[in-house]
């Protein structure tokens, strides 16, 4: 029996994404994901509980600042739940985008020494972020119990919304990761971009406080539909389907664009990093 065969040839400008190969390397993706999760909470007293505690603390700070001091309205919902249900997808988005963007540069040792589809690295980073998000979702359940908010069938939309946030974060993350191999500038720019993005997204406030004639502008932000979608799912308010449709298109475009750019430069990583 002849063993498997492959051909090494010069880099091509555009390549198709080799899904079969990615699938063959799935165990590596899980190994890297497990490493990321384990390493993050090693040598801490409370371990994985940090995944729940970090968004909770952020929620408390934001509640004090935006609800108690600035008095941001929350459409009649208790502010902590109103905020947390949007903070949950936002923090997942922001954290996984950041770690995916840094993941390639941070894996220099692997990239210059072993072959595997490089896309595995940012995928594992986002996967590790997903684990954190599932844990911090527990806090939301507790908050809903405390404030007596009954779950509605709208909750069923959560997995689909989560998928959309994942795809958006992954698309943007691999795009920044691919570009930052040549230009580290993007890594330095990212935290500021995300900070600005947070305040352009209805996380600490509701879309309803945006003046009518500027609402369309908020819709251009792919995170608006997703964050408001999460809020609707947990609080049982009607979904803004138009906004979610925009977000879905954006997610798809970012993902396809990100993968295309990534695949284009992937082969040069080892020489440039």
């Amino acid at each position, binding site marked *: 029996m*002849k*063993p*498997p*065969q*492959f*051909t*090494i*040839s*010069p*880099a091509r400008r555009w390549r198709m994404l080799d899904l079969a190969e990615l699938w063959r390397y799935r*165990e*590596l993706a899980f*190994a*890297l994901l*497990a*490493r990321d999760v*384990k*390493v993050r909470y*090693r*040598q801490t007293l409370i371990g994985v509980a940090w995944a729940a505690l970090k968004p909770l603390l952020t929620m408390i700070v934001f509640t004090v600042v935006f609800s108690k001091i600035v008095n941001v309205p929350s459409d009649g919902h208790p502010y902590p739940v109103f905020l947390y249900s949007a903070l949950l997808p936002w923090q997942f988005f922001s954290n996984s985008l950041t770690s995916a963007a840094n993941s390639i540069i941070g894996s220099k*040792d*692997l*990239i*210059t*020494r*072993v*072959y*595997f589809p490089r896309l595995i690295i940012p995928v594992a980073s986002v996967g590790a972020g997903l684990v954190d998000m599932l844990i911090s979702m527990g806090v939301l359940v507790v908050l809903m119990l405390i404030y007596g908010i009954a779950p509605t069938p709208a909750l069923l939309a959560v997995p689909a919304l989560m998928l959309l946030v994942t795809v958006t974060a992954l698309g943007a993350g691999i795009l920044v990761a691919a570009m930052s191999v*040549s*230009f*580290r*500038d993007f890594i330095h720019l990212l935290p500021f971009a995300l900070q600005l993005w947070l305040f352009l997204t209805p996380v600490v406030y509701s879309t309803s406080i945006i003046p009518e004639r500027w609402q369309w502008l908020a819709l251009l932000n792919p995170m608006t539909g997703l964050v408001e979608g999460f809020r609707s799912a947990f609080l049982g308010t009607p979904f803004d389907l138009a906004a979610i449709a925009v977000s879905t298109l954006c997610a798809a475009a970012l993902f396809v664009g990100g993968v295309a750019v990534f695949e284009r430069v992937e*082969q*040069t990583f*080892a*020489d*440039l990093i």
Partner: protein
Amino acid sequence: MDSYTSLEVRGISKQYRLGRTTSLDDGLRELLARSVSRMSRSRSADGPRRELIWALRDVSFDVAAGTAVGLVGRNGAGKSTLLKILSRITPPTTGEARVTGRIASLLEVGTGFQPELTGRENVFLSGSILGMKRREVRERFDRVVQFAEVERFVDTPVKRYSSGMFMRLAFSVAAHLEADILLMDEVLAVGDLAFQRRCLEKMDEVAHHGRTVVFVSHKLGAVRRLCQRVLYLDAGRLVADGPTQGVLARYVRDALVPPAGADGAGGTRFGAWRLAGRDEDTAHTCVAGDTITVRVPVRLARHVDHAWFQLALWGEGDEVVLSATSRDGGTPAMALQAGVHELAVRLQVPLRDGDYALELALCDVSGRDIERAELPPRLVVLPREDRALPRRSQGIVDVAVEFSCPAPDDPGPTGCP
């Protein structure tokens, strides 16, 4: 043994661009330059002129399944680049290679090790990074840990390991890889002397087990032992390909060419060494315990600001018996002009009789090698004339040792039984 071809390499070349972008300023400038040139369709007209070098030039060869092939050449000859292309880390600029079989590359020990994780977790992580399935790692786990002699510490984070334990575990994972083709770099032999020997034995075992091996090394002894065939690269070109003995002889001969006026175009090179104050016959021979001065012509292709040297002696079993740098003795880093210099290294040789390989390295301020090479021929150490002992008793060093046993009426030290 199977009769197919593992590697078919056809006209592989690799071009690198020197002076890569690092700073923000350069990065943006290049980006702008590139988009401008793309628009005007004239690539060389503007932007910083970049020097292009060929790390590999039109290299072709076949390797039949089950053969172990050595890859030799000076630093910068393209050995590592070739390994990186074959292991798909970087693509060739032109040319193609067909690889038949599962390939594993061991270019460095400890790839993917995570200090925070335990030994057990790292074995699984490193295993899957090197291309093993979880099931395969599980099957080999006990052997890996046993070989590394870290059974008691498998559940301790590896950051608490001694560097020896860390290296042993890392090597052990790599050594238990399942692959049809192994690309190995010499750095694999690590750890203390006893473990180094076991590493080499393990590599022997791997190489003689019907697997295809491409082995890069400066240690000709190891190449001679592991490989039936040798590829010799010089300045990116394959200059010789054939049975080990003949190609190594040519490589050694080339290395012996005195640097002054050799070919004019080459880089930094070491010439033929000899002992100071000896005639032709005894230029490479000394007696155990002698203090010798090794003289080596060194040709520098460029000015080096903070140069320092490292000299190592390798024993017959490929163990390091001595490794010293010019910094150890407090000699300040030297500023060396381009041109030919003569390095003199004075050292005492309190070694057992035998023959030893000299390895010399010239390093820059950051400790990176500018040149590193084994200097043939080997240094022959003769037994001391007053030695009554049979030749080659145990041990490496030959220093004055006195035994005494005081007579009973001598009070002697207290506490003796």
